[in-house]
């Protein structure tokens, strides 16, 4: 590994390489799950609950079973024979264990919950028959809000738990209570994100093939973490893991929605095996909106003890998350991270948190790009509130509380250590670029003309690439390691694979650059093979912004190990005592001495040929072949940082927010592929803006989802999103390969905070503070009306 991680030391990492994936995707020759067909395939369609919470008193499938094309209709009872119950019971303090069957047995928990599965010869016929299944319900009262869910006599989502509060965790430093009591001034702030959904443009879907001869299941599915998915699927089907292959084709976006094994997928696989016929399923958009996975819906309250200058001397966080009706993940996992990293770039030694996660009669939650999205809004929103209450400039309050860049590594009150970040530089650089000095004057001038302009700033310290040590320390189950192999074939061709799976992030391109860097070849000559669990090594998959550092980093380490072996062979072939002065560049062995580089006769192909076909010419004791498999467990946490600046004008009559400028200063370390990293940042910022300004999964009081159609759930289009300017102030991480860091989620964190703070700043004359999302024109008009 390069010791200094100095950017200039890398030849291939950090360059723009036009994406290798593009040709097939641009010409209509991508291969997504639903493009795959298998001879003899059957089609699945699910019968879903039309009640938010109800007992299933009777289920009549007679008429549906007789409908044209129907092969079978299966219910909870059938599936309990073929599948095991999922039990999520990690030994975590404050978290209740929970169980889930393939289909609910006697009651449905949300509008869109599963009841039965119809298998027919054609998708249209399966849908027809599903409509003929008669379900008799005994409606139960639904609990649809997080506060209602915590009330003593609230209806229970899961009777087994005896409570709707599935997780409750807290922490406090020694003196925080004393400090809060003694404080002259406490500033209280609240923040609420709306319920959202991931909305990959490709919905979920899968094709399961059972090979009766070899007793083997092949599952084609768009999934971010194929190996962990295989483990769970095999377990729940009572198969050995070697009997299951997961094949992930092109994936039309995931954003966290395509990680877990969902019940539909389990059922499709179980039916393929039972019927000994291939079964396919494509989720329609309404199912995706109603019943796939939701996210966010957090409520947070901070209480900050401050001195008269705005210095924070103690901070308390109360956080509640509405997790919906089912848990495909340990329920504490998302909210917990928010609480752990809240204080981020600020020097806050005394801190306490109390985090509750509750179940309600809504679709279950899962991690969505930046599960900890609300963090930076809470923190920088709190700072803005302090500034407002004390009538100070918000930048001044930031500067006063922010750790100096020289203070890193710094350990937060929660024990989390941040290193190699520069929030101070990012803030100052952004202030200068956006001309903050003159902004306040412009703002005042505009106000006299009735134009309400505001600026929002949000500093982000983004937790990325969670290592195994973090999971252990945070009480979250999971491993953070990743695995990769790199092989040079006898022909000299280079292939590589890793356990992560791309859902659009361009891994084929970025990982080629990682191999090129490690091995010394042209990235164009590297083939990346991902997504097939029989080919790829067992890895933990793509989540938590770990693709580059864990995935690409491990690929790089494996490639570097291959190079080492290749050079040892080269030294022998060239009659040298050691490989010290040899390197490989663009596939050719070079000899460098006295600052000069000289090409030798030898190429990587020559070395590969020797390694495979002439092993007796290898150095003594060396294994034939030229391939290496490596596993790598990244540091507990690899922190990136950024500072977001959003300038808005709010039309106070209509409540419409116009983003006039958006600028972000980023430090995500050294990168593999510049263009791809920028693409990720643009995508993340856009998702955050769309989420905070427009998106809202709406349930009415009785628990009916009002946003089952894409036309009812507002997602930002090209007309609403601004042009985003990106400035880089990167510093490499000292411990990761190539100095890489993650970065695909911080954009969500920062944009949520920046736009919210900007609108509050614009509406300061009306004393309107944004404390909930979405910041829709309607909600703004209501707030403005109240302020009069």
């Amino acid at each position, binding site marked *: 590994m390069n010791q200094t991680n100095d950017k200039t030391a890398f030849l291939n990492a950090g360059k723009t390489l036009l994406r290798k994936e593009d040709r097939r995707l641009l010409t209509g020759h991508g291969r997504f799950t639903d493009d795959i067909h298998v001879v003899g395939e059957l089609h699945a369609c699910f019968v879903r609950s039309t009640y938010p919470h109800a007992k299933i008193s009777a289920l009549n499938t007679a008429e549906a079973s007789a409908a044209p094309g129907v092969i079978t209709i299966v219910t909870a009872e059938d599936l309990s024979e073929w599948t095991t119950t999922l039990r999520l019971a990690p030994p975590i303090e404050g978290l209740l264990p929970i169980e889930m069957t393939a289909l609910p047995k006697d009651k449905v928990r949300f509008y869109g919950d599963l009841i039965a599965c119809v298998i027919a010869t054609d998708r249209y016929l399966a849908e027809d028959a599903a409509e003929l299944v008669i379900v008799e319900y005994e409606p139960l009262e639904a609990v649809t809000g997080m506060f209602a869910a915590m009330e003593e006599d609230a209806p229970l989502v899961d009777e087994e738990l005896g409570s709707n509060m599935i997780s409750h965790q807290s922490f406090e430093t020694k003196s925080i209570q004393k400090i809060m009591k003694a404080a002259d001034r406490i500033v209280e702030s609240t923040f609420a994100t709306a319920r959202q959904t991931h909305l990959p*443009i490709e919905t979920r879907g899968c094709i399961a093939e059972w090979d009766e001869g070899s007793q083997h299941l092949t599952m084609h599915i768009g999934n971010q973490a194929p190996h962990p998915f295989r483990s769970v699927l095999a377990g729940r089907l009572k198969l050995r893991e070697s009997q299951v292959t997961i094949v992930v084709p092109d994936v039309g976006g995931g954003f966290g929605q395509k990680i877990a094994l969902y019940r539909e997928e389990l059922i499709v696989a179980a039916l393929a095996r039972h019927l000994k016929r291939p079964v396919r399923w494509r989720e329609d958009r309404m199912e995706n909106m109603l019943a796939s996975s939701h996210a966010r819906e957090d409520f947070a309250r901070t209480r900050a003890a401050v001195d008269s200058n705005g210095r924070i001397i103690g901070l308390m966080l109360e956080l509640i998350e509405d997790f919906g009706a089912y848990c495909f993940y340990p329920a504490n996992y998302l909210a917990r991270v928010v609480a752990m990293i809240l204080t981020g770039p600020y020097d806050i030694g005394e801190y306490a948190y109390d985090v509750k996660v509750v179940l309600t009669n809504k679709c279950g939650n899962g991690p969505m790009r930046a599960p900890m999205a609300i963090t930076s809004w809470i923190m920088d929103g709190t700072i803005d509130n302090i500034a407002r209450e004390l009538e100070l400039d918000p930048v001044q309050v930031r500067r006063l509380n922010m750790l100096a860049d020289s203070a890193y590594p710094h350990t937060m009150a929660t024990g989390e250590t941040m290193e190699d970040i520069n929030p101070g530089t990012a803030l100052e650089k952004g202030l200068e670029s956006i001309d903050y000095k003159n902004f306040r004057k412009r703002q005042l001038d505009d106000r006299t003309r009735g134009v309400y302009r505001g600026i929002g700033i949000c500093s982000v310290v983004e937790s990325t690439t969670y290592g195994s040590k973090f999971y252990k320390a945070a009480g979250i189950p999971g491993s953070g390691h990743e695995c990769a192999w790199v092989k040079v074939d006898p022909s000299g061709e280079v292939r590589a694979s890793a356990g992560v799976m791309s859902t659009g992030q361009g891994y084929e391109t970025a990982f080629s650059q990682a191999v090129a860097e490690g091995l010394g070849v042209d990235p164009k000559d590297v083939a990346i093979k991902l997504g097939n669990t029989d080919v790829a090594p067992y890895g933990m998959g793509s989540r938590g912004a770990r693709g580059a550092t864990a995935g690409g980093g491990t690929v790089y380490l494996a490639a570097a190990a291959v190079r080492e072996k290749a050079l040892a062979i080269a030294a022998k072939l060239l009659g040298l005592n050691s490989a010290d002065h040899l390197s490989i560049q663009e596939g050719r062995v070079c000899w460098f001495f006295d600052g000069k580089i000289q090409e030798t006769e030898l190429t990587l192909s020559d070395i590969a040929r020797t390694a495979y076909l002439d092993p007796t010419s290898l150095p003594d004791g060396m294994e034939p072949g030229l391939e290496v498999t490596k596993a790598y467990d990244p540091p507990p946490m690899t922190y990136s940082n950024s500072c977001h600046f959003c300038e808005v004008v709010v039309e106070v009559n209509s409540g419409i927010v116009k983003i006039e400028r958006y600028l972000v200063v980023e430090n995500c370390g050294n990168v593999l592929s510049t263009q791809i990293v920028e693409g990720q940042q643009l995508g993340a910022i856009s998702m955050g803006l769309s989420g905070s300004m427009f998106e809202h999964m709406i349930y009415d009081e009785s628990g009916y989802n009002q946003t089952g159609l894409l036309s009812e759930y507002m997602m930002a289009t090209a007309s609403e999103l601004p042009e985003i300017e990106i400035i880089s102030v990167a510093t490499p991480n000292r411990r990761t390969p190539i100095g890489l860091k993650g970065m695909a989620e911080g954009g969500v964190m920062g944009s949520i905070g920046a736009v919210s703070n900007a609108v509050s700043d614009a509406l300061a004359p009306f004393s309107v503070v944004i404390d909930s999302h979405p910041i829709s024109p309607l909600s703004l008009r209501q707030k403005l009306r109240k302020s009069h």
Partner: protein
Amino acid sequence: MSKTAFRLNVNGQDYEVLVEPRKLLSDVIRDDIGLTGTHVGCEHGVCGACTVLIEGKPQRSCLVFAIQARGQSIRTIEDVADENGDYSTLQQMLHEEHGLQCGFCTPGIVLTMEAFLKSNPDPSEEEIREALSGNLCRCTGYQNIVKAVQKTILRGHEEDKEIASL
């Protein structure tokens, strides 16, 4: 429901299909004709991923029954690059500007924008964004798509100049 046989003209080629009259054009193009570049993202006319050109006009193939497109010429993403596989200018610019990530929305966007640029060769950024607003993309934030369209226009102007100077 009984099936009906009819002929569809897709990318200049005639296809004989035998399908139920209720079958959507998107499904017939994908499943019966086997051109899977046309993607289905919502099936209710909102996302734009299924956009094809019918008689040169962008249409959502999930809102049309295949039988309704009988006798009309349909063009899909597979026909945008030329027979040698060379990109159209717009495809080339999307590639260079990183205008796609997962690529699921891309076919619909390419066809929508190809048609848009034909009818409006010199649009402003606002007009481009407006024209693009019927296509949802969850990955890119649209910025690089807009850039690619702008570069396509610039390239067109350069070519015009070259022709004029001949």
